[in-house]
């Protein structure tokens, strides 16, 4: 390609992303394609997730619900599922918020993939209401509630409901302009549904300003609520259910590892959408490279937070600290800890440390998938320990409970309910267009390819 200087241009490193060369009409067509026709793979996945969801509900009823609310241990894997979903689908929208706030451009095709998981939050909300009934009152045991009335049930529930409502409001507000596109362009079969959802959106300057700020405010509130909710979950469902565990850093650790899993989930979703979702033009090296860097950074933070907790207990060596080390790290749950350590820290570090791999597409996706598996084992370690049958009025553990071995119902419950939440995300793809038409189109006007001596660069406009 001849540059303005009459020299030949080269792409030294990697091809520039295709998405910024697409015509706006193509983006509209791609956004509406999944709404008009799902495709065989989509239908197959949806049926599979529906079956898994039904299996999960049956396992939930046949296992813990029939066992009753008298003991915590039969509910261990309900808590594991709840913790996993909160740490993944609950966390993914935070990535969208963070990248919006820093006004990055690579995020435009990614945001919707992260936000769409907010649609599945109804599943952890239901599980939460089942689990919160297991919590005893705060009298005579350690908790963060200082004996407030209604604690922990009322205040936990308020936070959780606020988070889920905020997540849905965030997703809906961000998707409203695209629903207006679907209303007008998706065809007569979809007109009525999208007309109701789009609420007469026309795209005036006033409406765009409101959407832009509304998405920003709801997003920020979502993140603030998410951090608060995860802190309370870590405190009420894990810390205060293990006698003697008053780790000050654990709620932050739990939240940080959830952020790591949210990025991992977005990476894996992007990988699947690129591979089978017809989104290869939108999700290119630029997106995976940026997400891979975040994944690596959060993987390192995982180690930093766990190390900080571990070293205090290890050096302290009081009977309380020794018991906690045995229970959570080296005793009955050593295997889940070792797997989580390998998959949530070592794997992203050893894969994404290498720039060449991080700049590829497969490397970040594989790292993300491993982190998600590691997160399952991390939740198993934490909730199996905290849902053991121990007297919560003890000041410290006077024995180490044996490991909880999951039964068939537990495994079906975990797989089934996670599948059901994924199914909700898939269903949402029929209502919320991917890619986000207004955000990707808005990005087109702010980018231009320019020859720069012997190469070609992308010039990015920053109007704000």
């Amino acid at each position, binding site marked *: 390609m001849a540059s303005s200087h009459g020299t030949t241009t080269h792409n030294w490193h990697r091809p520039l992303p295709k998405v910024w060369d697409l015509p706006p009409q193509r983006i509209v067509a791609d956004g509406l394609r999944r709404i008009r026709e799902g495709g065989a793979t989509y239908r197959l996945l949806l049926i599979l997730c529906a079956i898994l969801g039904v299996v999960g509900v049956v396992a939930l009823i046949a296992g813990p619900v029939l066992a009753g609310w008298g003991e915590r241990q039969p509910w261990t894997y309900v808590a594991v599922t709840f913790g996993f979903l909160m740490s993944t689908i609950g966390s993914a929208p935070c990535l969208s918020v963070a990248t919006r706030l820093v006004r990055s451009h690579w995020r435009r095709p990614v945001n919707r993939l992260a936000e769409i998981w907010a649609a599945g939050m109804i599943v952890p909300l239901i599980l939460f209401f089942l689990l919160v009934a297991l919590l005893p009152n705060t009298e005579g045991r350690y908790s*963060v509630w*200082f004996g407030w009335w209604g604690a922990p049930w009322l205040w936990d529930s308020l936070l959780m409901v606020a988070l889920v409502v905020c997540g849905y409001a965030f997703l809906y507000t961000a998707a409203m302009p695209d629903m207006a596109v679907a209303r007008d362009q998706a065809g007569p079969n979809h007109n009525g549904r999208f007309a109701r959802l789009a609420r007469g959106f026309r795209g005036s300057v006033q409406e765009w300003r*409101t959407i832009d700020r509304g998405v920003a405010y709801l997003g920020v*509130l979502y993140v603030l609520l998410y951090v608060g909710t995860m802190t309370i979950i870590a405190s009420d469902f894990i810390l205060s259910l293990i006698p003697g565990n008053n780790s000050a850093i654990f709620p932050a650790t739990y939240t940080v590892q959830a952020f790591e899993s949210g990025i991992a989930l977005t990476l894996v979703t992007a990988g699947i959408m690129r591979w089978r979702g017809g989104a290869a033009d939108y999700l290119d090296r630029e997106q995976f490279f940026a997400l891979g860097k975040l994944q690596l950074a959060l993987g390192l933070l995982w180690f930093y937070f766990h190390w900080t907790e571990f070293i205090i207990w290890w050096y302290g060596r009081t009977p309380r600290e020794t018991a906690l080390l045995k229970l959570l790290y080296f005793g009955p749950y050593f295997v889940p800890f070792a797997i989580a350590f390998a998959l949530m820290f070592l794997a992203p570090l050893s894969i994404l440390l290498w720039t060449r791999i991080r700049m590829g597409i497969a490397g970040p996706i594989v790292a993300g998938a491993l982190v998600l598996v590691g997160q399952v084992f991390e939740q198993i370690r934490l909730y199996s320990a905290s849902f053991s049958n121990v007297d919560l009025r003890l000041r410290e553990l006077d024995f180490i409970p044996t490991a909880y071995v999951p039964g068939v119902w537990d495994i079906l419950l975990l797989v089934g309910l996670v599948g059901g939440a994924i199914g909700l995300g898939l269903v949402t793809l029929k209502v919320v267009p991917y890619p986000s038409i207004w955000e990707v189109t808005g990005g087109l006007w702010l980018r231009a390819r320019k020859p720069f001596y012997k190469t070609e660069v992308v010039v990015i406009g920053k109007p704000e």
Partner: protein
Amino acid sequence: MAVSGVLGVFKDLDTAIAGVDALNELGYTRADFEVLTNAPYPEGTFGEEHGMHRLGLFPLVGAACGFSVGLLITGATQMAFPLVTGGKPLFSIPPMIIIMYEGTLLAAVIFTVIGLLFESRLPRLGSNLYDPRITAGYIGLLLHAPAEKVSEAAAALRRAGAEDVILEEQPAPAAAKAPQRKGASA
């Protein structure tokens, strides 16, 4: 004075900007017409002011209300049940923080949602003049002009390169659920 709507539909940004200039030459200011697009353009593209937005007030007011309620609940509880806990003062701030934080965020979310409904002016109750091509990438210039000046404005928009100019046929209906193409091509 009867006011009627004129919607010029432009295929691209260049002709739409020419349409804006044409309306300005006729004496209309930016406040007299709306620009309808399927994606947000940088502020000022069509000559609009970098306006302040009141939406930010809603979460702020909500947060202040929620914080006050949280403070009231926790403070009043401590005063109503004066139990010394852990040797701390009767009125201690740290135990109140979680509940005040919850109240602040919960009310901020509720007020933000109310603010969104209010500030977006949706669903619209005024003119229903619209063209579905706008969501396909066209740009609409929607002018509300005195009835006797409508034809002049329509002619100016057409000269500027509008692919279509749609005139409002009748007074706006009382309520509109979804915008449909209404009116007659000029």
